[in-house]
């Protein structure tokens, strides 16, 4: 087990190295890719869905909140505008009421002349300063002295020669003294009024005003020439006539209300911008105008209400006449909506302020002048060169009768409230920002959560994959080591799954391979020793063989030498005058024992042909012996072919026994006596081709027995006579010719030899030999020549 620990460490190291070599190809990498990819896909899908939902939720919430907040803001502004309008109306209503009260009292005086006179007398008694006028020579008018609750002025054209008011004028003065009773308390209570006054009818337009001011002096200063014209015509042209029209039914009140209002103008007495409210008085019969009761309020009061409008940070209000003239607005507001002041007084009568929306530098506001219906408008106002969205709420006040020089018409003031949308929607924007922030936070957390999960999963996958694929990597590493012929490797079995099973199987296989390999090595070792032994033996044998070969080679060389030495010389072949002899002999690779001879003695020719069995030196020696014996017998004059052969055999047999040459030979002789050819001895067939081309094959089987087998062959030896004529040819051969093989192992054969002999028989002996040998060699081709080839051709000259 200690060993196995070492192997395990090494194996794991190797597996790691291998993974390092192919980081993306390993099983582990694939495993990590697949599992990691699946987890990543899952996380991305779920995370993406969550993010998408959060975004949608955020969008919906923003929309919902925005909608709600916008509605609330609009409602608020609308309500604000309504309440501001109500405040303005309330102020105006109070002034109307005060004027109405004063008018009611004065009308009562007119309707009741008796009471009027009494009240007048009573007031004159109590307060003579109120009715006693003194002439002012500088102004050419009369006015009571200071100290009374009210000031009353009688213009020059109302005085008689002694500069005292005319009688009817004085009556009017006295009657108007009732103002002293009511006006001070009306001025003190109710809404803040600048002054209250009474103006007489057109034929005696005295002017009594409470409180006391130096009004005639002020008139002189502000309106020079007023003392020369009728008061009404000078200050309010057309107003009196309009009222007169109402009285006689020539015209109706534009608004069913007695009160007639002026546009703002500069007050002659106080010099302030004021608005006057008139309540005409009627004669008792209601047929004509009997003067008017009036009250002035300064614009400051209206402006105060409007300027108090405070919507969001910089929202403001304004009050505009129907012609677009803005009569109340803060300085800040004036700048925002681009109003420009122009000096009024272009027409007749009291002069006022001209500050119209129409002349605004902001086109959107100028447009508002011609269309100031109630409602909310969204305008773009230029602020320091940049268009800024504003919200403008217009609210029309109840209509009134408005005098303008020459006529009285209906008019309604409009209240406007201007707020930058940015401020209105500030809370909306804040809410949206909060939602946006919250959404972003959620998104960030979600992304972080995904990344964290991914990290954890990646680490887990890495850890698990190492465990799961470790076994397979170890197996792969071990397999490679086995491939590298390290059979000692074993794989640690760390799990009980398929990998564990494979590891166990692998270890068993490795064990077996190791066992077999070890045994094989031992076997190889043994065999190697054996082979080495055999090799030495073979070397020794080789050396022996070499020596033997050398010996045999020498023997063969000697044998070949002997064979060639023994053959007849060319001169011997040509010695016969009757026979043309040609011979061919070719020794095989290993010299055979072919023999041929031409022996001549006393004119007798003996032609021999034979074939010693076997090859080598012994064959050569045997042939030499045959030749020697044959020569000896020929020389000894043995003319009987049978005796010749029997003696030769006898001599050879004895020598074969002595020399223990385990061989014999076929041998035949042809004896030529000048006319016939006598064949004796056993050898191959003798072929005879006559001059006319006839072929004769002469078997020699029965003419003898192989030489050297039997001591006495006389019972077997015979002769055969073949007559020979001119141009007949005889062919002798050894079995080397007929048994020569071609590439297919087929023999040349006696028939082919005969064909060639017949084909060539007319030619010279040499040419016949050459032709047959050519044919034979062509037949053999590159095939091995097994035996000596000997061919003899005899031709009768």
């Amino acid at each position, binding site marked *: 087990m200690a060993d196995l620990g070492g192997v395990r460490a090494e194996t794991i190291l190797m597996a790691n190295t291998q993974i390092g070599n192919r980081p993306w190809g390993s099983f582990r990498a694939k495993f990590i890719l697949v599992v990691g990819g699946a987890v990543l896909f899952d996380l991305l899908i779920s995370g993406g869905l969550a993010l998408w939902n959060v975004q949608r939720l955020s969008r919906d919430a923003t929309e919902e909140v925005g909608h709600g907040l916008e509605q609330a803001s609009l409602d608020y502004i609308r309500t604000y505008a309504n309440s501001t309008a109500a405040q303005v109306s309330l102020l105006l209503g109070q002034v109307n009421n005060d004027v109405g009260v004063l008018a009611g009292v004065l009308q009562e005086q007119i309707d009741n002349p008796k009471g009027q006179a009494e009240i007048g007398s009573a007031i004159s008694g109590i307060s003579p300063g109120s009715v006693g006028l003194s002439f002012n020579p500088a102004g050419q008018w009369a006015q009571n002295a200071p100290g009374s609750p009210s000031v009353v002025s009688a213009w020059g054209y109302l005085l008689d020669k002694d500069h005292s008011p005319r009688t009817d004028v004085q009556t009017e003065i006295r009657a108007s003294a009732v103002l002293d009773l009511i006006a001070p308390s009306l001025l003190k209570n109710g809404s803040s009024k600048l002054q209250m006054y009474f103006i007489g009818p057109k034929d005696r337009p005295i002017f009594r005003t409470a409180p006391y001011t130096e009004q005639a002096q002020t008139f002189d200063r502000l309106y020079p020439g007023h003392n020369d014209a009728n008061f009404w015509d000078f200050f309010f042209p057309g107003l009196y006539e309009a009222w007169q029209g109402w009285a006689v039914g020539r015209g109706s009140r534009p608004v069913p209300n007695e009160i007639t209002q002026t546009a703002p103008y500069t007050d002659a007495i106080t010099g302030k911008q004021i608005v006057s409210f008139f309540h005409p008085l009627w004669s008792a019969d209601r047929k004509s105008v009997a003067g008017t009761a009036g009250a002035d309020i300064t614009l400051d009061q209206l402006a105060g209400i409007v300027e108090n409008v405070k919507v969001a940070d910089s929202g403001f209000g304004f009050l505009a006449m129907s012609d677009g003239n803005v009569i109340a607005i803060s300085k800040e507001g004036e700048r925002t909506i681009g109003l420009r002041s122009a000096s009024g007084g272009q027409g007749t009568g009291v002069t006022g302020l001209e500050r119209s929306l129409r002349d605004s530098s902001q086109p959107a506001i100028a447009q508002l002048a011609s269309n100031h219906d109630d409602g909310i408008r969204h305008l773009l106002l230029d602020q320091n060169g940049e268009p800024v969205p504003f919200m403008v709420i217009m609210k029309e006040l109840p209509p009134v009768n408005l005098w303008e020089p020459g006529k009285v018409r209906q008019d309604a003031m409009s209240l406007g409230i201007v707020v930058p949308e940015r401020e209105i929607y500030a809370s909306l924007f804040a809410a949206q920002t909060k939602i946006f922030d919250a959404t972003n936070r959620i998104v960030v957390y979600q992304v972080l959560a995904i990344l964290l999960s991914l990290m954890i999963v990646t680490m887990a996958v890495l850890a698990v994959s190492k465990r799961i694929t470790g076994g397979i990597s170890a197996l792969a590493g071990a397999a490679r080591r086995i491939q590298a012929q390290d059979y000692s490797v074993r794989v640690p079995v760390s799990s009980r799954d398929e990998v564990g099973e494979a590891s166990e199987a692998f270890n068993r296989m490795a064990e077996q391979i190791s066992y077999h390999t070890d045994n094989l090595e031992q076997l190889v070792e043994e065999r190697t020793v054996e082979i080495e032994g055999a090799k030495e033996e073979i070397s020794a044998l080789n050396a022996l063989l070499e020596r033997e070969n050398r010996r045999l080679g020498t023997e063969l060389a000697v044998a070949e030498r002997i064979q060639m030495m023994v053959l007849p010389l060319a001169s011997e072949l040509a010695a016969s005058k009757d026979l043309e002899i040609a011979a061919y002999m070719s020794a095989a690779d290993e010299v055979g024992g072919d023999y041929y001879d031409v022996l001549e003695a006393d004119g007798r020719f003996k032609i021999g042909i034979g074939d010693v069995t076997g*090859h080598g030196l012994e064959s050569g020696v045997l042939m030499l012996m045959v030749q020697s014996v044959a020569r000896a017998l020929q020389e000894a004059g043995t003319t009987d072919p049978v005796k010749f052969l029997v003696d030769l055999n006898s001599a050879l047999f004895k020598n074969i026994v002595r020399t223990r040459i385990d061989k014999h030979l076929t041998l035949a002789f042809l004896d030529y006596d000048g006319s016939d050819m006598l064949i004796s001895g056993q050898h191959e067939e003798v072929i005879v081709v006559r001059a006319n081309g006839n072929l004769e094959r002469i078997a020699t089987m029965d003419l003898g*027995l192989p030489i050297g087998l039997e001591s006495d062959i006389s019972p077997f030896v015979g002769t055969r006579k073949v007559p020979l004529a001119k141009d007949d040819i005889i062919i002798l051969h050894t079995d080397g010719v007929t048994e020569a093989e071609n590439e297919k192992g087929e023999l040349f054969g006696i028939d082919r030899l005969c064909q060639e002999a017949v084909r060539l028989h007319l030619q010279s002996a040499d040419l016949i030999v050459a032709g047959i040998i050519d044919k034979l060699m062509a037949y053999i081709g590159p095939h091995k020549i097994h035996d000596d080839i000997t061919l003899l051709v005899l031709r009768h000259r």
Partner: protein
Amino acid sequence: MEIRYENFRIWTEDETVFFDGVLRLAGPEAYAPIYSLALAALHENNERVIFDLTGLEFLNSSGINLLAKLTIEARTLAVVRLVVKGTARYPWQSKSLPNLKKLYPQLDLQLA
């Protein structure tokens, strides 16, 4: 017993010695094992020995010398009847086998 080389095979079945293929061995020494085999057949069988040469395509002169020696050996044993089965299909057989009959007239030569 059997002697087998790439192009010939010689074996015995009972009293018959079969020769098959092409025999072109170098000399008496090379033929010695075959000689021993055939000689053993001659000595072991009392009545008859058959040399079946019908499958022997070629036999060189050394081989014919061997057959001659075996025939002479059979002749000396006398009691054994030697039968040689041959075929005229192969030229060497009709050329050489009759000599065996001459050496040992009692030899039963069957040339088919």
